[in-house]
C-alpha cells in the first residue's frame, strides 16, 4: 500500500476515478506514512486520523453516488495558519494555546467543497514569521532531504516548512500554505516541490491567521506543476468576507500547464544577479533560460531598478502590519493567558510568555516604524518604495510576458545555522519579497540538484491575475528539467 503515497495528486485522482483504490485506502496510506515519519520530520503538529478516515468514507460515498468533486478523495495537509472548524489551530504559537476555531477558513472550505480530505495540521514558523521553520513553538521541521553523505538535519525552509516537507516526504498529496515574503516558494525550492503564491486577492484571507494583511496570500505546495494548478483552482475564488479578495473568475489553471510557450517573451531581471551568487544557483538559472529558449521563448534582459530596496521595505511593511494584527492576542478572549495582578501584568505575562523571540522582534520593529516621529521615515518611505517596485514590474511586463529568477539564494541550510543572525535569515527572501510587495503571482519549481544533491528552485513571476502564463512557463520548465529526484527515506 505504501506506493499510494508516491502518487501525484493527479495520478491519485485518476486512480480514484478508475476505482483502482478508495479514498479511504488513500487516506489510510497517508496516515500510516505520517505516523512513521512524523517523529523524525515533525511536519504535522496535529493529525486528525478519525476525521480523515470518516471524511474519506464520505468521499467514497459521494463518488459512488456520482457526485465526485474535482478533488474528490484527495488527502491533503493544512498549514496550521488556516482556521479549521473544531480542529485546533495554533499558528505554531503558544499564545493560541488549544484554540479551536468555531469557523473554517474560506480556502480550506473550498477544498472540502471540492471533495478533498484533511489529514491534519502542518507545522510552520510561529505566525508564519521565519524562513527556516525554526521559530515554531512545536520545534523545527526537518527537511526530508539531506546532503549527500551527510547526516546533518536541514531546514525545509519557512514559513510553510511543514507543508513543503510533508509533500516532499509523500505524507500528503498536496498541502495548503501561505506566502507573505516567500513562505510558499522558498520551502518549495528547499524540498524539491512546487509552490505558487497567486496574485494578491486570488485566494480569500478569511480564516487565515493574519501576519501582514497586505502581503499574505494562500497557495498550494504540490508535487508537480499540474498538481499545484489543480489545488489552486479549488482554493481560489472571490469571497465577499474578504474586502481585498478580487471579484474575478478562476481560470482552469491545469489546462494552462499544457499550453505552448512558443513565442512568449521571458524577462531575466539583471538586478537579481547578485554579487557573490552561488555558482550553482547561477548555473541553474542559466539552464532555465536555455530550456525556455529551446521551447521557443524569446529571452530578454529586463531592469527592475528598485529591487535592492525591496527587502528593507518588506521588513518595514510586514512587521508594521504584524504589530497591529497580533495585538488581538491579549489573553482576554481565547488562547493562552498569563497570570498577573493588574491588567498590564496580565498583558505582559500573556504576550511575554505566549510569543516567541522572532515574533516579539517583529512586533517591536513594527511598533517602532509606526510610532510618532518615525512613521514618515520608515513606514511611509517603505510604501513609496513599494509603489516603485510595482512600477518596475509594470514597466518590465510591457516588454515581457513572464520573468524567470532563482527562488532562493541558496539550497536548504542546516538547522540552527542562521538562528543567531536574523539578517542572514531575512536574506533568504531576497528573490521572493518583490512579488509580495507588488501582489504578483510567483511559482517555484525544482530545477536541479546542487553538488550536495539538494534541490534548487526556479521562480516564474507573472502579471497580476495571469497565473495561466506562469503555469504554462512552469509546465515547460518542468518538462525540460525532468526533475525526478526524491529524498532518500531515512525517516521510516
Amino acid at each position: 500500500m505504501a506506493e499510494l503515497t508516491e502518487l501525484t495528486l493527479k495520478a491519485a485522482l485518476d486512480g480514484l476515478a478508475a476505482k483502482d483504490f478508495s479514498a479511504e485506502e488513500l487516506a489510510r496510506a497517508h496516515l500510516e506514512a505520517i505516523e512513521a515519519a512524523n517523529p523524525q520530520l515533525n511536519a504535522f503538529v496535529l493529525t486528525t486520523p478519525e476525521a480523515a478516515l470518516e471524511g474519506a468514507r464520505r468521499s467514497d460515498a459521494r463518488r459512488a453516488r456520482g457526485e465526485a468533486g474535482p478533488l474528490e478523495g484527495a488527502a491533503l495537509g493544512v498549514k496550521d495558519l488556516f482556521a479549521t472548524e473544531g480542529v485546533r489551530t495554533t499558528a505554531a504559537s503558544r499564545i493560541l494555546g488549544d484554540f479551536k476555531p468555531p469557523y473554517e477558513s474560506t480556502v480550506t472550505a473550498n477544498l472540502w467543497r471540492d471533495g478533498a480530505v484533511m489529514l491534519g495540521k502542518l507545522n510552520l514558523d510561529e505566525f508564519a514569521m521565519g524562513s527556516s521553520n525554526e521559530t515554531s513553538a512545536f520545534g523545527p521541521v526537518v527537511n526530508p532531504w539531506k546532503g549527500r553523505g551527510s547526516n546533518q538535519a536541514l531546514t525545509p525552509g519557512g514559513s510553510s516548512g511543514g507543508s513543503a516537507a510533508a509533500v516532499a516526504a509523500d505524507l500528503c498529496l498536496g498541502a495548503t500554505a501561505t506566502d507573505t515574503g516567500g513562505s510558499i516558494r522558498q520551502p518549495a525550492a528547499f524540498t524539491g516541490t512546487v509552490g505558487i503564491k497567486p496574485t494578491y486577492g486570488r485566494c480569500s484571507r478569511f480564516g487565515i491567521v493574519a501576519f501582514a494583511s497586505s502581503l499574505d496570500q494562500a497557495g498550494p505546495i504540490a508535487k508537480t506543476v499540474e498538481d499545484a494548478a489543480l489545488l489552486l483552482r479549488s482554493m481560489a475564488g472571490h469571497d465577499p468576507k474578504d474586502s481585498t479578495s478580487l471579484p474575478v473568475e478562476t481560470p482552469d489553471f491545469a489546462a494552462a500547464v499544457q499550453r505552448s510557450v512558443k513565442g512568449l517573451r521571458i524577462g531575466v531581471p539583471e538586478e537579481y544577479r547578485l554579487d557573490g551568487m552561488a555558482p550553482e544557483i547561477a548555473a541553474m538559472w542559466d539552464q532555465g533560460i536555455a530550456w525556455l529558449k529551446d521551447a521557443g521563448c524569446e529571452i530578454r534582459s529586463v531592469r527592475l531598478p528598485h529591487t535592492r530596496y525591496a527587502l528593507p521595505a518588506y521588513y518595514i511593511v510586514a512587521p508594521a502590519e504584524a504589530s497591529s494584527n497580533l495585538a488581538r492576542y491579549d489573553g482576554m478572549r481565547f488562547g493562552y493567558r498569563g497570570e498577573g495582578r493588574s491588567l498590564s501584568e496580565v498583558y505582559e505575562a500573556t504576550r511575554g510568555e505566549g510569543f516567541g523571540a522572532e515574533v516579539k522582534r517583529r512586533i517591536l520593529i513594527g511598533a517602532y516604524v509606526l510610532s510618532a516621529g518615525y512613521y514618515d521615515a520608515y513606514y511611509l518611505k517603505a510604501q513609496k518604495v513599494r509603489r516603485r517596485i510595482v512600477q518596475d514590474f509594470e514597466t518590465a511586463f510591457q516588454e515581457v510576458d513572464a520573468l524567470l529568477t532563482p527562488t532562493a539564494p541558496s539550497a536548504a541550510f542546516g538547522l540552527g545555522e542562521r538562528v543567531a543572525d536574523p539578517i542572514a535569515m531575512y536574506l533568504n527572501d531576497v528573490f521572493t519579497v518583490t512579488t509580495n510587495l507588488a501582489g504578483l503571482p510567483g511559482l517555484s519549481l525544482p530545477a536541479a540538484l546542487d553538488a550536495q544533491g539538494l534541490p534548487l528552485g526556479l521562480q516564474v513571476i507573472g502579471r497580476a491575475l495571469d497565473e495561466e502564463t506562469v503555469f504554462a512557463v512552469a509546465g515547460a520548465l518542468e518538462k525540460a528539467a525532468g526533475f525526478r529526484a526524491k529524498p532518500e527515506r531515512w525517516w521510516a
Partner: protein
Amino acid sequence: MSTTTAPAPYRIQGRTGEWEVVIGLEVHAQVASQAKLFSGASTAFGAGPNEHVSLVDAAFPGMLPVINRFCVEQAVRTGLGLRARINLKSRFDRKNYFYPDLPAGYQISQYKDPVVGEGELEVTRDDGSTFKVGIERLHLEQDAGKSLHDQDPNWTYVDLNRAGVALMEIVSRPDLRSPEEAAAYVKTLRQLVRYLGTCDGDMEKGNLRADVNVSVRKPGGPLGARCEIKNVNSMRFIQQAIAYEARRQVEILEDGGSIDQETRLYDPIRGETRSMRSKEEAHDYRYFPDPDLLPLELDPDWVRAIEATLPELPDAKRSRLMRQYGLSAYDATVLVSDPERAAFFETAAKGRDPKLVVNWVSNDLVGRLSGEGKDIADSPIPPEHIGELVQLIEEGVISSKIAKTVFDRMWAGEGAPRAIVDRHGLVQVTDTGLIEAAVERLIAAHPDKAEAVKAKPQAIGWFVGQVMKETGGKANPAAVNDILKAKLGV
C-alpha cells in the same frame, strides 16, 4: 427673517480682568443602522451582555472587516445635511491601543482621509436667534465595547455589544464661545441628524455624546492651550463641564501657571473635571491605513441620489415657517425642534389662522403631552381636529374659553370638535336679545354695581363674569362687552 442679535458675550471675571472661553466639540453620533460598521452583528439596544457580538467584533484570528454600505450612506447623508464636502475617496486607518474592550487592539477609524470634509451648521439658540459654526470633518469609526468595573470586587467584565457599532465623529471648529452656545450647537446638530434619520440622537443611551475641547484666552487674544473633556453625555453636563473647566483654567493662568494639554473626565456628581492622562502619558496610536480594507470610493451619482432624498432641513424649515405662516422666530424654532410637530402644525394650519394654531399645538397640546411624557406622535388628537377647533373659534361658534372645554373632551377621545360642540350644546350665544335680557336683569338687580362701573370702567368685568355665568359660558364675550357698555353708558 431670523434674528442674529447675539446675546452679551460670555465672559469669565478673573482677578486680572475678563476671559473668553473657546470651545470646539467632537460629537460621536451612533449611526442609526441595524448592523455594525464592519460585521453583520446587530446593534439593538438593551440585549444581554455579549449577545450581539460576531467573531469579527471579538477579533477572532483570521476574521476580516467588510464595510457596511448603509453606514457609509448615513455618513454621506449627514455630510450633505451639514452642507459639507463629500470626499469621493476616503480611507480607513487603524488606531492602535490595548484595552480589553477593544478586542482587535485597534479601532478602525478615518484618521487622515475622512469621508466628509468641511461644512457648516447654522445653530439656533432657544430664543430663535442663530449663529454659524464651522464643521471641520465627519468621519466613520467603530465604537469600543464596555468595561464593567462595578460587577465584582476583583474582576472587570467586558460587554462587546457596542464593539464595532458605527459612529460618526463630527468635529467642529473652535467657534463656540460659551457653555450655552456649546449646548445649542449639540442641540442643533442632534436635531439635524434626527431630521436626516442618520442617528436617533438619544443621549441617555449614549447614542450621541461629545468630547469637549476647552481653552481660555483674553478676549480676542491668541488661542490658549486646550484640554479635552472626554465622553460627556448630556446637554447639562456639557455646560457644567465647560463652565468648571474654563474657571479652572483661568485660576491656573491667573496664579501664573500654564495649562497642560491633557485629556480630562467630567464627574457629574462632584461637578468637576479630573485629569485622565497628560500629554506625556498620551497614547502613541501608531495610525496606519488598515490593510484589510480597500480605500472607500464613492460614485458621484450615488452621492447625488442620496442628496435627492434629503428632507427639508431644520434651518430651511424654520425660515419657511416664518415666511409662509408669519410665525415668530421663537414659535418657528419650537415647532422645528421636532419634525413631527412641525408637520402636525402644517396639517392643522391648512386654511386657518397660523398663530392661533401654533398656540394650540405648542402650548395646549404639546404642553399636555409632555406632562404625560409623550411626543406629538402619541397625540390622541389628530391635526385635522385642531384645525377644526381653530375654525370654530374663527367662525365665532365657540369662544376661546369654550374651546378649552372642547379640547379637554377631544383629549378624552370624544372625537371631532364640531360634533362635541353640537352634542354638548356648547355653541356660543350670539343672540343679542338673549344677552340684552340678561344684562338688563343684572343692572336692575345690582344698581350699586352699575353705578360703580360708571366711576371705574374696569369694574365692568364683574358684569361680564355674571353674564357668562348665566349663559353657561356660551355668550360671545365681544357681544357681551358691547351690550354692557351700551347699557351702562361707559
